[in-house]
């Protein structure tokens, strides 16, 4: 019984981690694409003292600290909350 719970928790952790990694790579890719486009629209070569690579790196650092990116932890939190609610609803009288 307790062993089953541990096994289920380990499996859920594994699946959540895979989903988290995939989704975070996706949103970072979208953000990088947008930063590249922003640069290409805003500046001609040599117009900005900061190079294109630095501009993108700075934008990515800011993005990693943003609330939107941190909310990706909900990928772990929401299914866990859902499981707890399910256990409660299923087993209380």
């Amino acid at each position, binding site marked *: *019984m307790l*062993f*089953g*719970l541990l*096994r*289920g*928790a380990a*499996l859920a952790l594994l699946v959540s981690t895979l989903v988290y990694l*995939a*989704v975070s*790579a*996706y949103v970072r*890719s*979208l953000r*990088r*694409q947008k930063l590249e486009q922003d640069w290409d629209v805003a500046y001609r070569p040599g117009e900005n003292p900061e190079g294109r690579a630095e501009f993108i790196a700075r934008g990515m650092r800011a993005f990693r600290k943003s609330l939107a990116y941190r909310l990706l932890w909900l990928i772990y939190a929401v299914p866990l909350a859902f*499981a707890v609610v*399910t*256990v409660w609803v*299923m*087993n209380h*009288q």
Partner: protein
Amino acid sequence: MWTAIKWTLVGIVVVVFGGLLSYTLPSHDVVRVQETYNRLTTISSSNAMFYASSDRTETGPEQRDIYFIRGVFPDEKVKVYRNEDTGWIWPPYFKLDSSNLQAEAANLASTRDAPQWVVITYYGWRIPFLSVYPNAVSLRAVDSPDVTVVPWFNIIFLTFLALCVLLARRMWMQFRLRTIAPMIDDVNDALEDVSESGEEAARRARGFFSRLIGR
């Protein structure tokens, strides 16, 4: 030929996935509980996947005491439900209270002349040929057999699932655009540099990679 293979594979995926959803998602029946009982049940390799998995280590057919609930529909058709804990993994109902459910079902049992209707929530299929029974998950008493049960959970879950499929599709397209395509371009650039004797091989390799990514 390839079209036929492709559509066969698509068909298999749809049938398997649809079957999985149909088996696992909760359904509702309005029945009268005629009787509750437990029976020593033989579980063989052909239907073991439709029962709760056990912790035993020995192999071969297994005998186990299982709770059952007999339901009778308003039109006198019958359906027998098993009542087993699901445990913690699959299907994720986290049902641990089968003894309580059995007591509730016994308490709501009624006769044909004075029926007490109940909405029984269950998942699974009844396959008489394999001795497979749907698993009752919960039940509640209702006044009339004409009650309408809105499958809220299934509506929300299937909507969420559709959104997940759309997201996965967009993620894959982004991955192709931003990760795979540049890699192919690099390979093609490298192949451009190959000496004349390598022209033919390069052309073939380009064709191969183009086909791999489908453009």
